[in-house]
């Protein structure tokens, strides 16, 4: 039986959509916060229309994307343009500790909503707005998504091979960076309010979060005039270092050998001639002759499975890891040990899997105990049990089209 969760009692009115906002509130929901996701029938959360779908059948309650970032949450639908919408929003803000949105800057305020209004309803409300480049500044309104911001933030330039153009560092990377910083900021603001009674407004720019990761390179440029670019899988700290082809289709093992472990590595790969080869005798030589060294290593790995290479090397204290695809990740024994993937039974999708966060609290761990909600599935529960409407009043709201 799972123990009590750390954030039980924390209440979030969640206007977020897509990835950055929902992923931030996922951290909260996973640890027991009550997160009410405010969607509308007209404009369901955009990730609901992203493949992959259960059984390859599209549907707004069948998207794997949506489920990954929305487990444990409640979904209500609210027509934000309905005359009675404001009455409901007032109740939601009155109930909530935290309210958040991540629309393009200006969208929320054009709906008549925002921190100025919310703090009149609830003076100590904590509100966050997450956006690509912040609520202010000349580029604030410029539309875009994480895959593009990732390029603006410098990650694309740093990924790929020196003899070619850059490649995508897979995914809308800056969404994930922003979501994590956002979760941190929200939790810290909650503590500040606990101590002082004061809420506040958090303006999070995913761009400003993302460039934190590249600080050393920014300093390098401003001080030394050096502009770092992509170097494939090169390293100056390990040699050999890279990914090496193994047996099978598109199977690779990453290997990183420290200077101290070089003799052990040679012994393991039966490289009698390797340990005596002057081209590879020292770290400097190995780095200088890295292309030949990589070929030599690959002549060993290509006859073995990636799993065998990894376990042989790790047993000897040498860092190695299979380059895992989706199937590998699903079958990963360490993920299984950590119960990283949770099997959930979704109302429409049936049995499927979602991921947990990357940390475990020893006394009050987070769990995924409820599948991601179907659109508006919790209308009745939220409106009657949380917002205090009677069943008759709830039916009236439905009839008036407020919950669309």
């Amino acid at each position, binding site marked *: 039986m799972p123990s009590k969760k750390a954030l039980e009692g924390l209440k979030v009115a969640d206007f977020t959509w897509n990835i950055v906002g929902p992923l931030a509130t996922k951290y909260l929901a996973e640890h027991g916060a009550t997160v009410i996701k405010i969607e509308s029938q007209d404009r369901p959360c955009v990730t609901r229309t992203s493949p992959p*779908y259960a059984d390859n059948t599209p549907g707004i309650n069948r998207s794997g994307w949506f489920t990954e970032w929305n487990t444990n949450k409640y979904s209500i639908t609210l027509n934000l343009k309905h005359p009675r919408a404001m009455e409901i929003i007032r109740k939601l803000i009155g109930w909530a500790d935290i309210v958040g949105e991540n629309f393009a800057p200006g969208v929320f305020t054009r709906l008549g909503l925002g921190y100025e209004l919310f703090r009149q309803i609830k003076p100590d409300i904590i509100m966050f707005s997450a956006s690509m480049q912040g609520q202010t500044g000349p*580029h604030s309104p410029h539309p875009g998504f994480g895959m593009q911001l990732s390029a603006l933030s410098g990650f694309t330039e740093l990924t790929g091979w020196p003899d070619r153009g850059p490649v995508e560092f897979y995914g809308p990377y800056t969404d994930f960076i922003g979501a994590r910083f956002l979760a941190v900021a929200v939790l*810290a603001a909650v503590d500040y309010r606990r101590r002082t009674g004061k809420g506040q407004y958090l303006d999070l720019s995913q761009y400003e979060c993302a460039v934190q990761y590249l600080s050393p390179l920014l300093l390098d440029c401003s001080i030394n005039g050096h502009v770092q670019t*992509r170097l494939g899988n090169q390293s100056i700290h390990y040699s050999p270092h890279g990914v090496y082809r193994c047996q099978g289709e598109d199977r690779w093992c990453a290997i990183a050998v420290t200077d101290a472990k070089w003799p052990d590595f040679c012994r393991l790969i039966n490289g009698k001639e390797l340990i005596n080869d002057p081209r590879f005798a020292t770290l400097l030589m190995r780095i200088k002759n890295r292309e030949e060294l990589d070929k030599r290593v690959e002549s060993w790995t290509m006859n073995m499975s990636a799993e065998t290479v990894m376990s042989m090397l790790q047993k000897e204290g040498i860092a190695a890891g299979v380059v*895992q695809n989706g199937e590998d990740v699903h079958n990963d024994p360490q993920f299984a040990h950590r119960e990283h993937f949770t099997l959930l039974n979704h109302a429409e999708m049936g049995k499927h899997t979602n991921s947990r966060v990357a*940390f475990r609290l020893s006394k009050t761990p987070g769990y995924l105990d409820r599948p991601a909600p179907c659109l508006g599935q919790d209308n009745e529960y939220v409106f009657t049990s949380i917002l205090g409407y009677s069943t008759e009043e709830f039916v009236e709201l439905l009839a008036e089209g407020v919950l669309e």
Partner: protein
Amino acid sequence: MSRTGSESMLSPFRVLDLTDHKGLLCGKILGDMGAEVIKVEPPGGDSARCIGPFYKEHPDPEKSLFWFAFNTNKKGITLDITRADGCEIFKRLVADADFVLESFDPGYLKGLGLGYEELRLINRRIILVSITGFGQSGPYRDFNVTDIIAMALGGHMYMTGDPDRPPVRCTFGQAYLNASVEAAIGALVAHYHRELTGDGQHVDVSIQESVAGITLDQQVWWDLNRINVKRAGAFRIRPDNNVRHRFIWPCKDGYLVFVMIGGNWGAKSLGALTKWMDEENMATDLLKTMDWEKFDWGKLLQDEVDAVMAPIGYFFMSHTKAELFEGAIKRRITLYPVSNARDILDSVQLKARDFWIKMEHPELNDSLIYPGAFVKATETPLTLRCRAPLIGEHNSQIYSSRLGLSDQDIRILKENRII
């Protein structure tokens, strides 16, 4: 011991930061939000001080830009916790601390008598945050980790790179940074609970899982459709028929990203781009007559996609990154340059937001420009209060003033390399 404090989000709290390069960013984040963070290094300095780049390209443990970047807002002491005196001093510091951050191998601290159970007896409030490659237990518990290993086992590498080349990582390692922010979240979730109950706990962070957390949809494609998402380099590739279209494009002086999506997502953008191209006589009839609302590259064959891409490619090649970005902003085209460090430093948006903070480095007789706050908070603005510490910079403040060690004792500890 609970303190009150209203200067910043985490002002009353004290952090002992034992992390190496795998976890430095965690302590910096807590420090950015006002906590007092004491970086505890081995005598002589942490090994992360050897990581470049370096100030004026001079490798030196007091000039590592990596160290500077991820240790702002921290004080610094030197302490050998493996020695009896060092261990005892550490325990005294724990008695008065709220968080301990570490990234040693699983079991290492326990072996020194400093595991969570021992720390809890000293201070039941203590929250111990441990960052390791794979977690405190399990079949990979004792595996060695580096950035490339974590990116591989976490699943991200498989999906990154050109299809005709090996999988590739980001040249500047990302795994530890993601784990460090994840650790900060875990610390604050535990903190919320601790302030209600008075009890701390152990937060077990996995770098491998932190990487899995940035893989977007790798696991759900396998889980739901038994498809392995494959790397596609600078393209989007349809898994059913291998039709591909560019989304990273070369231009006159570099590269840019522009996704050719029609319909709701991108019709306006494509329309605006066509108009711009037409103004410069570079739009083909195909583009000018295209119904972008209905455009769905998923329904086209390769030669049809190529016919759309070719003129766009020529147009991009005739302009610089700066020209294209400026035009994109004016015309609301979702186009972004592939930026490098210079472009980021020159960003008008970041300047307009007062993002950069100048920090004095008296020891270098210089002041350096750092990224500023990761969030703009109206009541408790984040700021950089101090630059990264020099080796043992706050030994005197902590050992002498705070712990009351005598000058003689400090000298003995120093000469025996315990501090």
